[in-house]
């Protein structure tokens, strides 16, 4: 009986943790202020236009 209770506690804790993490999810962030490019970048991430 005590073994069953211990197993149930473990299972409940796992469920609670996973449900909480899933509910929180990942942060959404903000729309980037960088423009859609109409110039060719010299290297990745090196944006020269100021549009």
């Amino acid at each position: 009986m005590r073994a069953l209770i211990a197993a149930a506690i473990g299972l409940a804790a796992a469920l609670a943790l996973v449900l909480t993490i899933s509910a929180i999810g990942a942060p959404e962030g903000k729309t980037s202020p960088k423009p859609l490019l109409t110039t060719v970048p010299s290297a990745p991430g090196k944006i020269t236009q100021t549009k």
Partner: protein
Amino acid sequence: MRRKASLVLLALAVFVGALSPLLRWYAFPRLAKIPPSQYQEAVLEAKNATLIDYGTMQSKTVPKVTVVQTLKGNVEAAKEIEKSAGRDVVVWDTLSFVQGPDGKMVSQIPERYIFDAHSQAPVHATGEMVDGDPVQRKGIEFKFPFLTEKRDYEYFDFQARTSAPIHYKGTQKFHGLDVYYFEQTIPWTKVAYPKKMPLPGIDSSTLEKTTGTSLWYTTTRKFWIDPVTGAPVNGEEVNQEEMRGGTLLGGRDKVTVFAGDVKMRDDYVSYTVDLVKKNRVLVLLLTSYLPWGFLGLGLALLALSLWLEARSRRPSDPPPAVTERLDPVIA
């Protein structure tokens, strides 16, 4: 005391053992999603390409044509669509900007691509478009779903504005990654003129109607996909565009507008591979590393718990033997 320890270990074993399937089958489908705020650019080049000179309406070989593709996640638009869609949505505003060897614009086509953040299934909402024209996509575009399968997918072609199968053609090694190679061929198709073209004084949206000259396009699209993230680590398009018929060509049947093998620039290949290698670890954590690790740890804890329980039940050492002292019998 051993009994208590074995019960605690049993609870821990069930805890981590249960985390294994829960992470893989419950948390992963909910947590793995394309961030709505993503911003990414890619540069592709076609060397020794054929390009039309709109001044003379003659095509000529040029040293290089460059395509700059930018995609920007529109978080506000995504939130608005999520209210009616009832699921996590990503809105990508993209621009394909084509630049000639002289640095001048050849064409630019904006798009709005709306899709489910988890499955990448298309979501149809107001604002979905290609070059300002409303469209309803079928299948995927730009990226493949997480855990890409070895099968054909429907892929949307923004020039033809239709979807066609993109075929899985095998697994290859690319910069140390096992990637899936996909290929799609769009046969010669009449397409709309881009709204922004270097044709001063001419409205490209009415060009075909006024001149009878139509634009045709064919391409073979190649993608090398990291199957874990579904992200392309390399892309290539063997592209051809022609103007056909009408009064614009001075009596000729057709003129090549563009012909070239468009490949991702080397620095962008390296950059993309590095980015994908970093991102795939996060996906693998939820699909492989943590589930298998927790399963192993759970089994080890269970074994330890059972061992302690067995030890606690072992009969204790026998008591020391009692030697009965016999009193001497006195007669």
